[in-house]
């Protein structure tokens, strides 16, 4: 008798993941069908013209609840430094930017190594602006250095931050999911149409992002600035020659994404994303 009970218990335990995988597979099939229909609408021009917000999100996998749990804990923590709250910065540098004033330039064969090893120390300085506008703590999560031509490097840094603004109340959401929405700063056709890349401009973007997040928090109960993307763009020499003298060649392009924790059985994520877009446009950023 006891052997039978053990057998049933073991069989049930083994069957559960198989059942979960089967259900998830069915969900993915339904998602694929729906996504293809939406894609066809976009191609045919019969969609509601809000491109990204109409395409459904892929169903979460069976193990995603592990990540979701971690994501929620990290995003709702007021002090944690993690990948769910960050400022991403792209800049262009030469080897001289990472050398000490009295330090000789390294062997050209080793310059890439110096750049990669010293990029974190260079980019941590960008945390000053983050602390001034939206954070109590800031750290370099990682850097990515790409050599471009001779003695020029594209440096991408991910700066995690602990917010100094109120994230809102997550406890009121019983069956929540994070919904992400995006807005762009200063849409432009040409690089020179973007504002000059200065610390003040970066601070202005981050301040605006926090303000919009505050308005979203008032409407939905909570809001986190998930990522402020600040990309430096360089005006080429030929184009710079055609612009007024003194034009700064480094310009700033940016995007911000917000994360809002909602019960999607109560609020549609498309509505949230449209609202974020609307706020971004109306605020002229």
């Amino acid at each position, binding site marked *: 008798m006891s052997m039978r009970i053990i057998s049933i218990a073991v069989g049930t335990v*083994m069957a559960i993941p198989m059942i979960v995988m089967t259900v998830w597979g069915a969900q993915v099939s339904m998602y694929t069908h729906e996504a293809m229909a939406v894609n066809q609408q976009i191609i045919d021009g019969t969609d509601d013209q809000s491109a990204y917000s109409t395409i459904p999100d892929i169903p979460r996998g069976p193990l995603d609840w592990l990540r979701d749990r971690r994501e929620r804990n990290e995003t709702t923590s007021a002090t944690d430094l993690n*990948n769910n709250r960050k400022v991403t910065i792209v800049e262009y540098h030469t080897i001289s930017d990472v050398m000490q004033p009295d330090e000789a330039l390294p062997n050209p064969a*080793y310059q890439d190594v110096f750049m990669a*090893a010293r990029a974190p120390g260079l980019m*941590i300085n960008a945390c000053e602006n983050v602390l001034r506008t939206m954070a109590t703590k800031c750290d370099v999560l990682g*850097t990515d250095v790409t050599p471009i031509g001779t003695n020029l490097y594209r440096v991408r840094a991910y700066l995690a931050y602990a917010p100094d603004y109120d994230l809102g109340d997550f406890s009121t959401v019983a069956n929540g999911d994070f919904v992400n929405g995006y807005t762009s700063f200063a849409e432009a056709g040409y690089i020179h149409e973007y504002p000059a890349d200065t610390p003040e401009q970066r601070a202005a973007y981050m301040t605006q992002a926090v303000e919009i997040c505050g308005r979203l928090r008032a409407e939905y109960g909570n809001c986190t600035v998930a990522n402020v993307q600040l990309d430096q763009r360089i005006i080429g020499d030929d184009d710079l020659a055609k612009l007024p003298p003194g034009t700064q060649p480094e310009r700033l392009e940016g995007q911000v994404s917000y994360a809002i924790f909602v019960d999607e059985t109560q609020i549609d994520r498309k509505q949230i994303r449209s609202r974020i877009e609307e706020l971004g446009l109306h605020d002229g950023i």
Partner: protein
Amino acid sequence: MADDPGQMEFAARLRRIEERRLADLEAQQPKGRRARKAQEKSYDLGPAPVARGDDVRLRNGIIWAGIFAVVGGAGFYGYKQMPEDYLASLMTMPSGDASGAGFSAASLSWSRSGSPQNRGPVREETTWGPSLNSPALMTIDGYENDVQAVAAHFTLMTDDTPPAAITTFARNSDCTLRRPAAHEKLVNIRMDDAALRAPVTAFSEGELGQAVFNYASAVTERMRLHDLTPYVAPEMRAVDIYLTDTSAPLYLLLQNNGDGTVWNLHPAPGVTIAHVASITPYTSGVAGGQADTTYEAIRFADFAYTSDGKWLPNEEGGCYPVPQRTRYDGWTDAVPDNEPERDAIQTQVAEEIAGISFRNDLTKRSEGINFVRPAGQTDWQPPTPEYVVYDAWFRTTLGVSADFNLISPRRAAHILAGPMPTTPIPHRPMAETTIHMMQDDYILAGTLETREAEVLTMKADLLLLAAGGDLANLDPAPMEVPTQ
């Protein structure tokens, strides 16, 4: 009637029998309440006879073990197939306050798991030529099974047998080689890779910088320090060349298009090695030359670059010293052993016998080089097969076709370039030999352990210098708003 003594005696006897029977029954009853209760519950008439083979527990246990093994095995391989990023995001703790406390020189370590050389079957026919491992020996006519039929006092070269000495010479900066003199005999050896491991490590500053850059990038992208490896460039390989042709001074042309190679020459008595010219992709060397032997070398990575698995010329002109091969279908032809035929490309045969990956490879090799003027041509040519371009360069440079007097295994540990000797020729071990290497920024000799330790030290020192003298700088401390 009641007074009949016989009847009364009979009745008394019956009564005694009955009493005795009841007394026996009483004696068999279990004593005590509990025992009696147990007996009332039990309907067991005795243990049923169970044959040994009816015990199913062992069988069931084996079945369950099999089920768990299959499920566990599938789960393990599924886990292995998961992308690393996905696993890391699932399994690791949130990246919190990494203040660089874990980054130190002591964190850089390396443990060697062992790298056996001479892997694979001793002899294998491929459509790109025979692939031979020690002790098989490649010859002009085919192969021998045992190098000791040719080499006396043979010792296998390993990556732990350092040479007696190393000298260096400057490789050719021009895309050309000295032509064989009229009195010299060209011995033309061309292969993909040598099968043995060389006891030498060579690399440039650029290669060292690239290796450490890759490491530093990996660390700073995720702020995770991991093991530093003792590798900078592909490990050098080695091959024994036994020379027995005494008919004329030899002009040895040694070519490969895999890794850097040490060509270990063993000339028989009476052989004269006039000149050794080598064409290899990376730094290579020649051991066992004679006192008057001259050396030159082309490192074809100086004149060509790789793209999608192919070498393409840096310039559109006629410099294309990249060794190419025609396909060899020895095992598809009905020929006896030791009589391989070198055929032209047999596309139809390939399509019949080869799988999709080989067909893709053949297609890639047949696409040719665009925008090229093979040596000796004045006009731009349509997409030209690599072999044709290489052969044009060969003819222009050396005055003969690329398959002239050719010995061409795909891979070999030992090669006999010349007639089979009547008696084995002396095999000179590496420890008694000087290697003439192309110049490079770093050339290390020694046992594998010492070379690896030296490379690790070089990489660690460069990383430390790049990090400003402290590995903790790779992960600077977080900034905080000062608390009032």
